[in-house]
């Protein structure tokens, strides 16, 4: 442990020196009586100040938590001699909060378990555990400091938002799922009737219609199929305040959508399109949900000037007929062009614009306000460009439930479908 003198060391030494010199110079023995206690405290503190023998262990009580959870960082202390004041400070990264330093006393040969509370404010992958330990001697003259590395992984997952409805894809895949397909086959939803042909099952005969027609007719049904959903996350740039930003909303929305689609047996993949390009191939099941959420925790804004387009992605990342749900603040030209490129390639695309407007208020000057209005007009023009290409774009602001923009997108797609017919 590193020994450091407390402020008392210099203060009491200075005061003692001043008193002794003044007493000799002015011939005032009273000053010796005044500063004698300070000199005594100093001398005794210097004589007894020894580095304590302290053993520290610790780890978070669990490795996974949700946003808003509070968990304990468990610390085990074991000392050989008494420590009058032991200060413990757990240095936490941004996104985690604690209660500040804790001062305890350890008797000789005592071992103690302590819980330091840690609040998970923001999602992310953290390694908390840099513990600053300071042992102060009995008279407070010296402090013995050490930094103990107790870092352990802690994953804080975004708080999932329950969605009542999801976007329905235009096309389904061939595997069984929960989506009513447009095709006809075995299912529950009624589709049409057709004349009986040899090989049809008897249970599918519609006896009522057959009686009216005078010939056997069978019911045709819509089968339930699954879909491929690709969550396209724009991580080129974000707009944020010190507390939250568009990336936080993007990750939370992606986690909620992934959980809901996977619960319906759909295959879900993720593409992180930004300074660092990463992707997760579509798959289904609980394992895929954990993979997706772990991948989302690593999402961050990395400044990168290189031009990127969707050609960089492996073909299996964007399967044909997949529904691509893009979560983007529409701030970077690379992502806006990539989305238009996806639409041009025939993908079923829907854009949820994670609005940066609340995080970028106008400045105080009239010219700032004018620039802000021009910026808003530019964004409206970009939205019109997407809608002209048949891509629904819905603005989603902080504080509004995710279900609202999803319903707007669904309403747009219903309207678009009627227009085609």
């Amino acid at each position, binding site marked *: *442990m590193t*020994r450091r*003198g*407390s*402020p*008392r*060391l*210099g*203060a*009491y*030494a*200075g*005061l*003692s*020196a*001043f*008193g*002794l*010199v*003044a007493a*000799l110079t*002015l*011939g*005032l*023995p*009273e*000053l*010796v*009586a*005044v*500063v*004698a*206690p*300070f*000199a*005594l*405290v*100093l*001398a005794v503190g*210097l*004589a007894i*100040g*020894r*580095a304590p023998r302290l053993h520290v262990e610790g780890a978070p009580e669990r490795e996974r938590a949700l946003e808003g959870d509070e968990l304990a960082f468990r610390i085990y202390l074991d000392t050989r001699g008494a420590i*009058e*004041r032991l*200060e413990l*400070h757990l240095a936490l990264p941004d996104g985690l909060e604690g*209660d*500040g*330093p*804790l*001062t*305890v*006393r350890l008797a000789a040969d005592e071992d103690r378990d302590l819980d330091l509370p840690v609040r998970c404010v923001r999602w992310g992958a953290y390694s908390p555990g840099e513990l600053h330990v300071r042992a102060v001697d*009995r*008279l*407070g003259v*010296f402090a*013995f400091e050490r930094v103990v590395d107790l870092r352990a992984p802690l994953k804080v997952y975004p708080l999932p938002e329950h969605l009542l409805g999801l976007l329905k894809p235009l096309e389904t895949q061939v595997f069984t799922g929960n989506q009513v397909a447009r095709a006809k086959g075995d299912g529950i939803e009624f589709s049409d009737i057709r004349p009986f042909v040899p090989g049809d099952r008897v249970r599918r005969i519609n006896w009522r219609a057959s009686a009216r027609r005078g010939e056997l007719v069978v019911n045709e049904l819509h089968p339930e199929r699954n879909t491929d959903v690709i969550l396209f996350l724009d991580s080129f740039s974000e707009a944020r305040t010190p507390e939250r930003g568009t990336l936080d909303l993007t990750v939370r929305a992606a986690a909620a959508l992934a959980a809901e689609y996977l619960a319906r047996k759909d295959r879900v993949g993720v593409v992180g399109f930004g300074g660092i390009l990463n992707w997760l191939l579509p798959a289904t099941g609980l394992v895929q949900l954990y993979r997706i959420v772990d991948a989302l925790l690593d999402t961050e804004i990395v400044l990168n000037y290189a031009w990127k387009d969707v050609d960089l992605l492996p073909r299996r990342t964007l399967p044909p007929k997949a529904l691509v749900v893009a979560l983007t603040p529409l701030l970077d030209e690379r992502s806006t062009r990539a989305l238009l490129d996806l639409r041009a390639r025939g993908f079923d695309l829907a854009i949820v614009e994670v609005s940066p407007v609340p995080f970028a208020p106008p400045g105080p000057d009239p010219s700032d306000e004018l620039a802000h209005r021009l910026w808003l007009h530019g964004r409206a023009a970009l939205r019109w460009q997407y809608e002209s290409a048949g891509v629904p774009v819905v603005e989603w602001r902080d504080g509004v439930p995710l279900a609202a923009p999803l319903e707007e997108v669904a309403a747009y797609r219903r309207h678009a479908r009627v227009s085609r017919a």
Partner: protein
Amino acid sequence: MAGAALLAMALVLARAGLVAPSLVLVAAGYAGTLVARDADVLDAAAPLVGCALLLVAELSYWSVELAGTGREERPVLLRRLTAMLALAGAALVLGAAVLAATALPLGGGLAWNLVGVAAAAAALALIARLAARPS
């Protein structure tokens, strides 16, 4: 007065570095009053002044330490308060003993002055040596 004002500023701003100068100013003020009064009579209140100064110093440093966001367990608070009071009592006794020693009729002269200088220098040297000793 200047010392008290500086101490108040130290406590409000939670600056430990300002406590020592404020104590030096207060001690200097007391030395001034001693110079102004009759030098033949020892001030019997000197041990009380020393005890009070020590209490003020300890409480000031404690106040500055508590100004942060940390918290102390209750046993730590109680033990520290008890230790501080015991230290104040010991300071009073020590101050009284020193004052009593200075009242002994040992006479004066250059020799005793040299002894006093040597004792003061030795005390400061001992403190410096102990401070420089590695832990």
